[in-house]
C-alpha cells in the first residue's frame, strides 16, 4: 500500500512539475513573479475543451495534437502580453509587474466566464487512453503515464536546451547575472520574451492535460497559482531542478499525508514552504 501511495504521489509530482516549470523559468530569467501563470493554465484547459472536437476527436493522436495546438495558442497570448505590456515595466518598479500580472488574472478570469460560463466542463478522454497498466494489484493509468512521459520530455528538453544550445547558454547567463547578457551583445528583451513565451506554453499544455483529467471551471486559476508557488518556492525560486524535486516531494507528502494526517496535508505543505524559506535565509546570512 505504501508503495502504491508513493508511486501515485510521484506521478502527481511530475504533473505538478509541469505546472510549475514555466513559472520558475520565467522568474529565474526575468525576475517576474507571474501571477497570471494559473490563468494561462486555465486558458490551456478551456482552449483544449473548445478545440479537441475539431481535431480527430476520440483518437489519442488528435487529442495530443489539440493539446499541443492549445499550448501554442496560450504561448501566443503570453507572447502578446509580454510584448505589449510587460516589456514596458522591466525597468520600472517591481510592484508594477505585480500590477500587470494581477490585471491579467482579473481580465482572463472574466473573459473565461464570458466565453465558457460558470458551469464545470470536462474533456472526454479517448478510449485508448482511459485504461491502465496493471501490475499485480497496482493500477498505472495510461493517461497518467502519458502525463509523466510528457513531464519527463519537458524536463529533458529544457535540460538539453540549457546545456547544449547557444540560447541555453544565454539563458543560464541571464539567470545568474542579467547584466552579463547585455555585455554579450544580446538584446535582453528578446531573451525575456522568448522565456515568457515558453513559460506560457508550458502552462498551456499543463492546462490542456488537466482538462481531460479533472473537471474544469473558471475558479481553476487561483488554485493552480497557489500550487505552482508552493512548488517554486520550496524548490528555490528560479531553479528548474529544485522545482522538480519540490514537485515530487509535495506529491508524495500529499499522498502519504492523507493516510496518516488526513486533514493536515495542506498545512504540512505550507509549513514546509515556510520552513524552507526561513532556513534558506538563515543559511544565506550565516555564510
Amino acid at each position, binding site marked *: 500500500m505504501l508503495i502504491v501511495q508513493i508511486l501515485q504521489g510521484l506521478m502527481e509530482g511530475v504533473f505538478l512539475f509541469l505546472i510549475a516549470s514555466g513559472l520558475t523559468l520565467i522568474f529565474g530569467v526575468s525576475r517576474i513573479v507571474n501571477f497570471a501563470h494559473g490563468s494561462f493554465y486555465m486558458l490551456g484547459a478551456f482552449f483544449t475543451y473548445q478545440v479537441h472536437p475539431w481535431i480527430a476527436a476520440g483518437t489519442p493522436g488528435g487529442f495530443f495534437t489539440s493539446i499541443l495546438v492549445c499550448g501554442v495558442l496560450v504561448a501566443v497570448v503570453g507572447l502578446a502580453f509580454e510584448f505589449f505590456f510587460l516589456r514596458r515595466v522591466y525597468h520600472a518598479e517591481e510592484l508594477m509587474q505585480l500590477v500587470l500580472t494581477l490585471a491579467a488574472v482579473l481580465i482572463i478570469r472574466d473573459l473565461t466566464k464570458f466565453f465558457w*460560463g460558470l458551469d464545470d466542463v*470536462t474533456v*472526454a478522454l479517448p478510449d485508448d487512453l482511459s*485504461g491502465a497498466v496493471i501490475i499485480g494489484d497496482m493500477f498505472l*493509468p*495510461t493517461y497518467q503515464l502519458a502525463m509523466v512521459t510528457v513531464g519527463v520530455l519537458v524536463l529533458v528538453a529544457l535540460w538539453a536546451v540549457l546545456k547544449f544550445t547557444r540560447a541555453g547558454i544565454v539563458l543560464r547567463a541571464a539567470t545568474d547575472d542579467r547584466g552579463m547578457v547585455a555585455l554579450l551583445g544580446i538584446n535582453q528583451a528578446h531573451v525575456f520574451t522568448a522565456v515568457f513565451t515558453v513559460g506560457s506554453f508550458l502552462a498551456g499544455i499543463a492546462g490542456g492535460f*488537466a482538462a481531460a483529467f479533472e473537471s474544469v471551471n473558471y*475558479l481553476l486559476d487561483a488554485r493552480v497559482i497557489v500550487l505552482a508557488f508552493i512548488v517554486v518556492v520550496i524548490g528555490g525560486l528560479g531553479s528548474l531542478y529544485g522545482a522538480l524535486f519540490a514537485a515530487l516531494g509535495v506529491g508524495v507528502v500529499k499522498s502519504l499525508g*492523507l493516510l496518516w494526517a488526513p486533514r493536515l496535508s495542506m498545512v504540512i505543505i505550507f509549513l514546509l514552504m515556510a520552513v524552507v524559506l526561513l532556513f534558506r535565509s538563515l543559511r544565506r546570512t550565516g555564510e
Partner: protein
Amino acid sequence: MKKAIRNGAVFAATALLLGSAHAAGVKIGYVGGISGACGGLTHSARKAMEIAQEEINSAGGVLGGPIEIIWRDSKTKPDEGAKQTRDLILSEEVDLLTGVCSSSVFMAINPIAKQYEVPLFSAISGTHKATIDFGHPFVVQTQPHTLMEGKALAEYVARKGWNNIVTMGLDYEWGRTTVKVFTEELAKLNPDAKIARQLWPRIGETNLTSYITAALADKPDLIMAVMFGSGTNSLIKQGKAYGLLQRTELLTFLSTESYMSLGKDVPDGVHGWARGPFYALTTDAAKAFVAKYRAAHDGEYPNDWGILGYDVMYIIAGALEKAGSTDPAALREALGGMTFDTLRGEMGMRTIDNTFNAPSFIGVTKMSDEYPFPVMTDVNVIPGDVTLPDEATVNALREAAAKG
C-alpha cells in the same frame, strides 16, 4: 472622501429609479449566488421560479395581487448575501425571502430573517444548522437537510448490505456532518458494517488519484463519497482507469448538472443521490413543468435546484392563501397544518424545526436513450418521515448551540 459622496449620489439616484411602491399581492426577495461558486447551480432555480411566478400570476396571483420577485445576487459570499438581504428588508420591504445557495450564505442571512421577523424559505442550501442549531420561527427548510440526507444514505447502504466502507468526505461542514450522521445511523441499522477508513479531500481538490488508491487499498464494498460538482466529476473521471467501479461500489452526490457536464463520462452503475431529479418525477405536473421549462429555455433540462425552486414558489403561494395575509405568525400557523402537492410528491412541514418531510432520491446511473446524458434508474425515494431527526436530537443540538 469627496468621491464617496458622488458615489452616494449615484446610488441614491439608482435606488430612487429602481424603488417601487408596495402594492397588493406579495413581494418576495430572492438572495442567491447568481454569480460566484453557486452560479452554475442557481440559474436553473431562477428560471423555474420565474415559470412558477408566471403561472401563479396568470391564475390570479395571491392575496389579491401578483407575486413580485426582486432578484439579488449574493455573489456566493456571506457578507454580500447579508448586505443584500438587509437592503431587501429595509428598502424594498419584502414580505418574504427565498433563494440561498451555500451554507455560509444561509448562515449569514438566517440571523437577519430572525431579527426582522421576515420568513425565509430555503430552496437551495441544505445545512441543518440554520433550522435546527440556530433555528427560529421564521426560517423554513423545503429540502432534505444534511441530517436527513445522512440518514437516507445509511438507510440505502444498510438495505444493500455493504459492510466494509471507506468514506470520502469533502473537508467542510456538509462533508463532515453527512459522514458523521451516516456513520452513526448505519451503526444502528447494520451493526456488522464498519468504516475501514475516512478520507477528507480538501474542497477544490481535483487530483483525487492518491485518494482513490488509498480507498481501494482497503478493498471496500463501498466508497461513500460526500462530494459534489467538480469533486464528484473528477472522482468519476479519474476512478475509471483504476477500475474503481469494477473493484467496488461508489455512492456519491449526483445532482442533474453533474450528468450534464460529464455527459458520457458518467459510467453505468454509479450509485448517486439527488434532491430533485426531474427524470425520476413521474407525476403529470412534473412532466408538464419539464416540458414548459424546455420550451422556454432552448430544450435545456432543469437541474435539481430548478425543481426545488419551482416547489418553493408553490409552497409560498399556498401558505399565503391559507394564511390570508403576509403576517409571519399567520403564515407559520397556516404552514403547520398543510400538505402540498409538489413536484416531488406530497409534503408538509412540521413545526418543531420548520422542516418539510422532503424525500431523498437514491439510484443507479445508466446511459439513457431519452436524454443526452445518463440518468439514474431504479430510483429509491426515501421519504422525509423516515429521515427527519427526532425531537430529542433537535433539542440536544439546540442546547449545545446555545452554550457556544
